[in-house]
């Protein structure tokens, strides 16, 4: 068991997702995808939905993937992954790690039904959601993961709804493993991927992946913003193992949400003349509710 824990905590770097992709400098999603691929290892099939990740990493003749890679439509990455898993079963091949991956749009909106179906049917697939809180690939349109108060091209005055709580929705399907992670703690992220892959059945990992372009921050701040998202309480880090909340990551030192919001262009309207103090107070309220709910 001890050795197993050591193996899980080990940081992996295997160059399975290589240089030369066309992501912006400091892209959180490229970083997250690389960490996931390095953790899962060579014996992996990636089924990736349409989105930034597919666009910047797969064009001919220089894909970044060094593992089998299937690109599907926006809505059916998990359906394709289910099919791959069923085919492996029918051919009596394997075992193999099958990872369906998608952005927040394909997870929460367009591909929601196929994910829900995959969870319900109980396929042995890990679904990884790279959450950058809007449709970045098509020009920063609002998705149902866009947080309260954020400006996107379709919500120029700031988003009026709260973010959909996908990890809890996934957990309510009764799947064995759900986790959230950010790119700043790569050890934790890779441990969660490895833990998930060691469990039989559908799994869901939700990774916060800042988008320098869509969020309006400099590429060098990607990791720092993730850290602030954790330390403000806006993005709680936890695991749900067999329906029970576990391994909640405590906040090291609580930070007011302004620190997090100020770094990002998508919240800059809140701090300008005529900016809304109520909106900031509401975001702080959301953070406080998270802290209370998950005991951060």
């Amino acid at each position, binding site marked *: 068991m001890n050795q197993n824990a050591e193996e899980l905590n080990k*940081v992996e*770097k295997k*160059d399975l*997702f*290589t*240089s*030369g*992709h*066309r*992501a*912006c*400098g*400091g*892209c*959180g999603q*490229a*970083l997250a995808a*690389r*960490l996931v691929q390095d953790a899962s290892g060579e014996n992996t099939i990636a089924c990736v939905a349409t989105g930034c990740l597919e666009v910047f990493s797969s064009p*001919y*003749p*220089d*894909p970044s993937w*060094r593992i089998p890679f299937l690109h599907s439509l926006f809505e059916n990455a998990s359906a394709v992954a289910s099919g791959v898993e069923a085919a492996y079963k029918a051919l009596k091949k394997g075992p193999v790690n099958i990872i369906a991956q998608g952005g927040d749009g394909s997870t929460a909106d367009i591909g929601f039904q196929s994910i829900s179906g995959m969870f319900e049917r109980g396929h042995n697939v890990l679904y990884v959601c790279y959450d950058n809180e809007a449709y970045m690939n098509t020009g920063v349109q609002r998705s149902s993961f866009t947080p309260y108060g954020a400006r996107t091209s379709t919500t120029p005055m700031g988003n009026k709804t709260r973010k959909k709580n996908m990890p809890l929705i996934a957990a309510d399907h009764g799947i064995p493993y759900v986790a959230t992670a950010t*790119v700043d703690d*790569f050890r934790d992220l890779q441990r969660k991927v490895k833990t998930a892959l060691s469990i039989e059945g559908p799994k869901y990992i939700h990774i916060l992946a800042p988008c*320098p372009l869509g969020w309006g921050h*400099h*590429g*060098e*701040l*990607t*990791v*720092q913003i993730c*850290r602030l998202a954790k330390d403000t309480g806006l993005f709680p880090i936890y695991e749900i193992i067999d329906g029970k909340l576990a391994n909640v990551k405590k906040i090291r030192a609580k930070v007011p949400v302004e620190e997090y919001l100020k770094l990002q262009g998508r919240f800059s309207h809140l701090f300008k003349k005529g900016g809304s103090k109520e909106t900031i107070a509401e975001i702080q309220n959301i953070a406080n509710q998270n802290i209370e709910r998950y005991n951060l």
Partner: protein
Amino acid sequence: MEKLPLGLVMELRNVVPYKTGSWRTLMPINVMHTPPCNHACPAGNDIRGFLRVLAEKKDYEQAWHMLTRTNPFPAVCGRVCPHPCEGGCNRRDFDEPLAINCAERAVGDYGLENNLKHKKLIETRKEKVAVIGSGPAGFSCAFHLAKRGFQVKIYEANSEPGGMMRYGIPSYRQPNYVLKQEIDNILSLGVELECNVKVGVNIPFDQLRNEYDAVFLGMGAQKGVSIDIPGKDAENVFTGVEFLKQVNTGKWVEIGNDVVVIGGGNTAMDCARVAKRLGANVNIVYRRTRNEMPAITAEIDEAMEERIMFRYHTNPVKLVLDEGRVVGLLCVQMELREPDASGRARPVPISGSEAFIPADTVIMATGQAVDYDGIEIQTVDKRWIYTNEYLMTSTEGVFAGGDAVAGLETVSLAIGQGMRAASAIEDYIEGNKESELAQQPVVISRELNTYYYQPVKRYEKEARSIHMRLKGFKEIYPTFDQDDIIAEADRCFSCGLCFDCGNCYMYCPDNAVKKSKTTGLYEFDYDFCKGCGLCAKECPCHYIQMTLEK
């Protein structure tokens, strides 16, 4: 024609990498910056270097060799240095600075215990250099020259070598065997030492100048200066230097029950604490307050712990004599007015506030001066030797360093000057154009990413109980535990030098940081680096810097 499989199947060997490095506007580079501790060290020690060796390799021997590259007296400095390095330590803005001084002493003591020897860089050269004075400056200069193969001879006026380290520092701070062993280690490099020879009195200075290729003056400021008040020539009035020298040579000094020490510098503290150990009640008389005292804070604290009375705002006007012996001082109270030239508040007497303090002995620790007997040289303000920026005096081929140049300063500054003078002497003899190496910029705490460090409690050295301290001249800080010191060295932030945390390697979204197979160090793959700056931002120790494209 070859039959292709259905659909597009790509083989990895057909992959053409797309070099995203062309997008870059700023490039990351690895720069070994100067840490603030090294920058603040007057002896020029590589503090970060030896701390990292302790923390990573737990190797005291290597740490000792690193430290003695610059400083031949680690065990002495670890005891007496006021450690400006700790004032510079970037950890002060995070939790508490590192106990660098304790680490230095532990490393120095390890060297003494295991009898580690200095290594010579070059075997022998024919050029000869004379060093006048065997204090920290003289020995440091001799050490660095001897390492480079020069024939060095030290002339010492006293009967034993060490200068102020031998005669000015009481043994409860620095026992004599420590100094003796470190001196013997330097002498084993082939340095010649002749004691009881006062240059300018026993040998003419010009003779040395003709016999040797270069001369180094490190005679220090060994002459006590007393304040000019009536009665200062009475037989039970000492200067601070004189008193300490007598005690340190093992002479019994009859001081009686009440001792008054005049002055607020380190010598005053030493005299007071020595007198206390000889069984007297001690009063320190100082005309300003504690804030203006030039002595090291820790010394003042320790003196207070040892129940030495401090009388501030008090200025002696006259020593009261009875049959040629002092029986007390007449003092006047002062008040502080606007600062004088030295930046300290200017004391002004309050009229009618005269008071009498009884005394069996009066020690005047009110300043020191250079003894220029028989040595003619250009001076500054008629006090200190004039030198140019390469420590050469007005006389060609004669260099100087230590207290005689810098005024009353620390052992470590004298060591640093000795080292610089050694380089300058080598350049002078070889006819090189003097050059100084460009120094990398110093890392300030704002540039560090302290998120990756944990607050850890500082190692505090434990003094013996005051009761035990006052019983004799035994060292007040017993030997430190070696493992504790390694734990303390592990607190080092390693400002400006990679310590293999792997952040740049793991955080690069473009996989453009590679680990070199040969050196194990991290390198940038500029073909693919997009220059986002994430690695530089997340580097805890500011080793990575973003610069303009080259």
